[in-house]
């Protein structure tokens, strides 16, 4: 077994023993072995080993150095998809994924161009696009990923979240509340999938179930433990803002006044001023018409004001909830789950036997 194969085995072993991170001694050994393999005379092995070394350091707790090394590796071998995949993956596994969302999008799009039809690359694109705030692209990527892999629970989750909050499709709640958690459990994945169920239940105004789902999502984390605190608080913070947005996507009835900030809000006052103006115009229609003002136009403006504000609230709300979900969900997954093996394979970090 050559040095590169030994390094890959060490990396696999370090990830197999994942417990809120890779096994420390093994991941350090993998990094050292990859460094050694990076001196291999064969250019491709050398390039992939550099990627492996950077990824190992990322898992060892130095994502900044890992990203820098990956960018160097990409600049030297820009035609190799492995570096881009690794960079995209590390950006998405960062504790602050929104800060690196654009880099992740760039890297994963480049990886997809170099290696089209690879399910795991397509699977990582929806969260990257969502974190970057590009929801339509995220939805398209999620659908492409599901076409490539029909059992892809991850893309199913993102597609449903986007359909629910970006598209306003309440039928997506069934996917979030039932299908995705069941699939995730069946595949032995972490409890993070229950975070999507929180959004689904809340949209259906099932508040108790939403709370239960949140507890399930963070169940493996030690309550009160300082090490786990950022992930628990991240999930709770997102849930708090989700609650602020309120149940259901549609805003109707007496909720509307609360949604726009109450009776003293600028919206409510503008609307009241328009109503008062309409009255005055209707009292002196000739004078108003001479100045180019008509009752119909005022009524039209009132309708336009409401429609635009409703649409704006939905768009703003969707933006906050979806990006907030990415902010809470991605670090939780990265904390609880090792990267899937197909992602390592897409980085060429695998041993060919036989």
């Amino acid at each position, binding site marked *: 077994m050559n040095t590169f194969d030994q390094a890959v085995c060490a990396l696999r072993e370090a990830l197999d023993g994942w417990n809120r991170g890779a096994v420390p001694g093994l991941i350090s050994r993998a990094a050292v072995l990859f460094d050694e393999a990076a001196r291999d005379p064969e250019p491709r092995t050398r390039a992939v080993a550099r990627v492996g070394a950077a990824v190992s350091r990322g898992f060892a707790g130095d994502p900044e150095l890992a990203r820098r090394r990956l960018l160097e590796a990409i600049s030297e071998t820009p035609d190799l998809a492995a570096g881009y995949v690794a960079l995209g993956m590390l950006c998405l596994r960062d504790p*602050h994924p*929104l*800060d690196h969302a654009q880099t992740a999008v760039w890297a994963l799009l480049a990886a997809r161009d170099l290696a089209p039809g690879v399910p795991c690359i397509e699977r990582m694109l929806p969260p990257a696009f969502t974190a970057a705030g590009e929801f339509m692209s995220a939805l398209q990527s999620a659908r492409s990923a599901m076409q490539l892999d029909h059992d892809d629970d991850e893309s199913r989750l993102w597609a449903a979240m986007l359909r629910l909050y970006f598209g306003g499709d309440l039928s997506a709640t069934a996917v979030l509340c039932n299908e995705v958690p069941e699939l995730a459990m069946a595949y032995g994945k972490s409890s993070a999938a229950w975070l999507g169920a929180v959004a689904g239940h809340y949209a259906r105004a099932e508040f108790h179930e939403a*709370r239960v789902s*949140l*507890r399930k999502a963070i169940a493996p*984390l030690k*309550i*009160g433990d*300082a090490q*786990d*605190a950022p992930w*628990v*608080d991240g999930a*709770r*913070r*997102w*849930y*708090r*803002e989700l*609650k*602020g*947005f309120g149940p259901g996507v549609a805003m109707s009835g007496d909720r509307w006044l609360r*949604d*726009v*900030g*109450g009776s003293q*809000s*600028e*919206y409510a*006052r*503008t609307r009241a*001023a328009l109503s008062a*103006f309409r009255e*005055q*115009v209707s009292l*002196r229609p000739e*004078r108003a018409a001479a*100045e*180019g*003002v008509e009752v119909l*136009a*005022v009524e039209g*403006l009132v309708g*336009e004001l409401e429609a*635009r*504000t*409703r649409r*704006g*609230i939905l*768009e*703003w*709300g969707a*933006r*906050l909830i979806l*990006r*907030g979900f*990415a*902010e*809470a969900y991605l670090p939780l997954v990265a904390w609880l789950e090792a990267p899937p093996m197909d992602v390592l394979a897409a980085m060429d970090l695998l041993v060919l036997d036989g």
Partner: protein
Amino acid sequence: MHPQKLWSSADVIAVREGAYEALFARGEFEAESLRMESLLDAAFHPDSAEVDPGLGLAFVLLPDGGDAGLRRLSEAIAAGAVGWPVGHALLGYLGLLGAPDALRERVASVFDGVASTRPEALAASAIGGGDLRDYRDHYEQLRRAEASLAGLAGRWPVVVARQWFDFVLARRWSGFESLRALNLGELDPASRWLVSTAEFLAGEEGARLSMIACAEAIVGPVDPRWPRLSRIVAREMAALVAEPFALRWRHLQCAAARDHAAAAVRHWLGATQGDARPEEDLGVSIPPGGPHGSLGVLSPEPTAAARAAEACRQKAGEFLLDWFVQDRAIARPVDAWAADVLRLYHRLRGVVMLGALGASR
């Protein structure tokens, strides 16, 4: 050249060719104050209708554009060598003659370092923006001036103007409420007039009459001396109140075009901040004094996504976002009306400030 009563063609040509002596350039401040008044007499002489009264503005700066005379005057005021409010009078002179924002700001910048003229200088500089439509910068100046004059008697013009900007230009109803809550008795007559313009824009009953009454109260006492000023003020007032429906309609259209959704989302984000008890989201109760962090009370800070949404708005500037309306055809008449109001406001304010000079003699 010392015009006393009436501008002649020769005077006008001389001024345009730079053959004049700037005010306060010689340092004889009392004599120069009198000359300033005689220039106003010439500008507002009933028979000088064909000459732009703004011609008198040329005398403020040196023919080469310098401000050495003004600096000498400000130093004398700072040293206490001038016993009457000539700095105020000069700023009033500028306003009365309808000085553009840039000239008013330049002169005000000479006097804003002098304690006695600082409030007037800050007001002269900050209340503007109509010429270049840089209302945003002037709003920032107003905010800074309001903060620096807090607690001082001379703060009211700036306070009123800032609230007027809030309502008229940023279409914030809170600004209108604040204006209405002011004690008018504490305000100078020009600021009272400015409040009445906001009421007129809001469609308040009697606001038009109130505007006229305020303006008459200011201009009336100087009408015998400067009859042309009354005519100018009356003409400008007539233009301001000519189309109340159209004006109010444009203003409401601008108000409706604001991003109310962003404000609403900020409201509900703000409302969630206090909601952070673990029993609310996790369904567990914590004994008093129990652990914090992942289990206890959640800190009020929002998610990074929410912070980003806030930061974008703050970076762009709240006032700019509220003032800017994508359909400029709607906003342009309101902006133009605001510019006209501010120009007339400075005229009226100029009368008030020059009146202080006359009273002090």
